[in-house]
């Protein structure tokens, strides 16, 4: 239906008859009183799931509403170190740094007695810092790690009487890493000794002491020359390649 501008005027006047009013006003439906139907089971089940999820989230993460807990134990920003993401911009991590980092992880086995700081417990567990057994050659350390020690022993002027279990069940690599860590972290090394022990050297230690059965005693260890090093090639600290 074609109409002119007058339609609009009717609308504005307010006194026009209903029939002349603009169509949008007339055609509109009336808003009916709200219903009270049941929505059925599905939305209820959905609401139940939402409640369980929300409640579970709250009680898992609220830490008992403690005001002093700041970080949830399960909050872990991606911990994987990435050495190279392919664009060549990321910095290379030196071989020795990752070797030491792994060694520190293995040292977790030792820290219960020797303490995380390597100081030991006076009278109970011998220290690693200032210990002549650590500062000396690697052969004695290799022997201790592979077979353990039993009986009285003097370390840094104090005597101890304990059993250190054998760690020969660990892989050569892990033993090499933990000896490297202990020597570089806690030892005071002689000039020219970088403290590094390689997998190859630990294999040599196993070979060297394969006739030993049971833990070493102090006397047996003393039979190994103090400055004897495990045989094996020295490595480049940056790349880990044999020199």
């Amino acid at each position, binding site marked *: *239906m074609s*109409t*002119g*501008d007058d339609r*609009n005027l009717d*609308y*504005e006047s*307010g006194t026009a008859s209903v029939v002349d*009013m*603009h*169509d*949008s*006003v*007339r*055609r*509109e*439906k*009336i*808003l*009916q*009183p*709200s*219903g*009270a*139907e049941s*929505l059925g089971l*599905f*939305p209820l089940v959905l*609401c139940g799931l*939402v*409640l369980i999820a*929300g*409640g579970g*989230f*709250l009680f898992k*993460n*609220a*830490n*008992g*509403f*403690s005001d*002093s*807990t*700041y*970080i*949830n134990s*399960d*909050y*872990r*920003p*991606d911990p*994987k170190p*990435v*050495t190279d*993401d392919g*664009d060549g*911009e*990321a*910095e290379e*991590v030196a071989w020795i740094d990752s070797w030491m980092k792994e060694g520190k992880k293995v040292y977790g086995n030792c820290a219960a007695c020797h303490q995380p700081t390597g100081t030991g417990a006076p009278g109970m567990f011998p220290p690693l810092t200032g210990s002549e057994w650590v500062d000396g050659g690697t052969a004695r350390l290799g022997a201790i790690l592979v077979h353990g020690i039993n009986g009285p022993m003097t370390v840094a002027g104090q005597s101890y009487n304990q059993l250190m279990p054998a760690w020969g069940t660990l892989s050569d690599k892990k033993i090499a890493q933990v000896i490297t860590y202990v020597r570089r972290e806690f030892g005071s090394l002689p000039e020219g000794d970088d403290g590094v022990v390689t997998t190859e050297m630990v294999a040599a230690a196993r070979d060297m002491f394969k006739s030993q059965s049971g833990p070493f005693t102090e006397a047996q260890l003393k039979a190994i020359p103090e400055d004897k090093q495990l045989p094996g090639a020295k490595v480049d600290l940056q790349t880990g390649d044999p020199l």
Partner: protein
Amino acid sequence: MTVQATDEDIRERASIDRSMRFPVLFFFTSAAAWLFVATILGFFSALKLRVPGLWEECQFLGYGRVFPMHMIALVYGWALQAGIGVMLWLMARLTRRELKYGMGVVVIGHVWNALVAVAVICIWSGFGRSIPLLDFPGWMAPLFAMVYMAMVVWVIPMFKTRREASIYISEYYLVGAALWFPWVFITAGILISKEAAPTMAAGAGSWFVSNLIYFWMAPIALAVAYYIVPKIADRPIYSYGWAKMGFWILALFAGWTGFQRYYGGPYPAWIPAVSGAAVVFVLLAVVATISNLAMTLRGKTKLWEISPSLRFTAMGMFFFAVYACLSAVSIIPMVQPALQFSFFLSGLDVLAIYGFFSMTVFGAMYFIVPRITGCEWPSAASIRNHFWYSTYGIITLIVCLLIAGLAQGGNLSRPNIPFSTSFMNSTCWVVGACIAWLLIAVSNLWFFYQLALMFVGKGRKSEGPTLIHGGHDNAEGAAGTA
């Protein structure tokens, strides 16, 4: 079952619409103008992310200024004004009260527009603060609060003197939105003042954004949906009980949200945990609303094809569900560390403001404007274009920002990757965001042009509404669908 409107009803409607004509049209047109400004700025800020060196001599065109300008124009220029226009009209119709002293609202509306303009200019010339959605200088915050209250105070007398004793569900939402916003705005303003601890300010900023969405945009959009869907479908709301439950769920839980964005941050761990749980509980309101509306519309889904109001509203409700679900997914402890502080969260904000709130409000505008101007939308093709460009724009934007967020957030968690690399690695997706903003800008051009024609009274003068498909003289249209 069709209940025919009596002559009395029709006269009443016409006089209410007449009293609303200038205030509502004023808010709608100035909101649409700000929306257009905001989309252009959105395009430029996305472009600056991709090409940071563009016009680097001009400080005032830097990303640090263009992006806040874009957000302020979008929220305070477009969203708040459009929302208030819808709020006034819906409240008048539901309470059957005319707007008294309507020119007073128009005067206050001008003050609001001036304030938004001053805020944008302040940010432009470097006086902004870097607090999301509160970027304007601190001294403007009390002014915004006062002028806002002066604008919404008009709906309170209408509600108090409503003609019917029973309260329609949309009225709950409208009164809620009117009263919650000043509380949210003023609380955030106080907590972010200069004296506050920086961690508190950051948390309060995030709380503000979350509550602007859940306590202001969501109630208005839901009020619209609960009005438009029964009107178009010519059916009562399926379940009043569920509708009210949705409202109280929102009222109960929405205010707790916000801090989940700082999960693992320097707050006692229970604060983000409570916020995260609240985000999940808000899903109850989504379930209640969406299933209720779906049942109201059951068997009449082909109305989607012809009614612009219903189509925009339904798409808005769809984005509401998507927004609420993505917000809940983003707090899962497994994915949260990868999404924090990334494009993902700004993508969520845009999804709420444009995808959810704006689409629903467009639906309301397509319904309201013909009634207050007395003419029909000029072109069905333009409405179609507006709808599809907006929908594709918003979907492109969301997908791009979400993927960019995943790429960026994943890289941020890897300590060996420099910050700038993690940022640059994700900017390829920002190209998509540029295109999306361009699509949205184009769609709004159509909308703005049509609205301008309606404003000056150059709309179609024929009988029958403008429908998306089926032509103007469609029999269904004459039966009352618009």
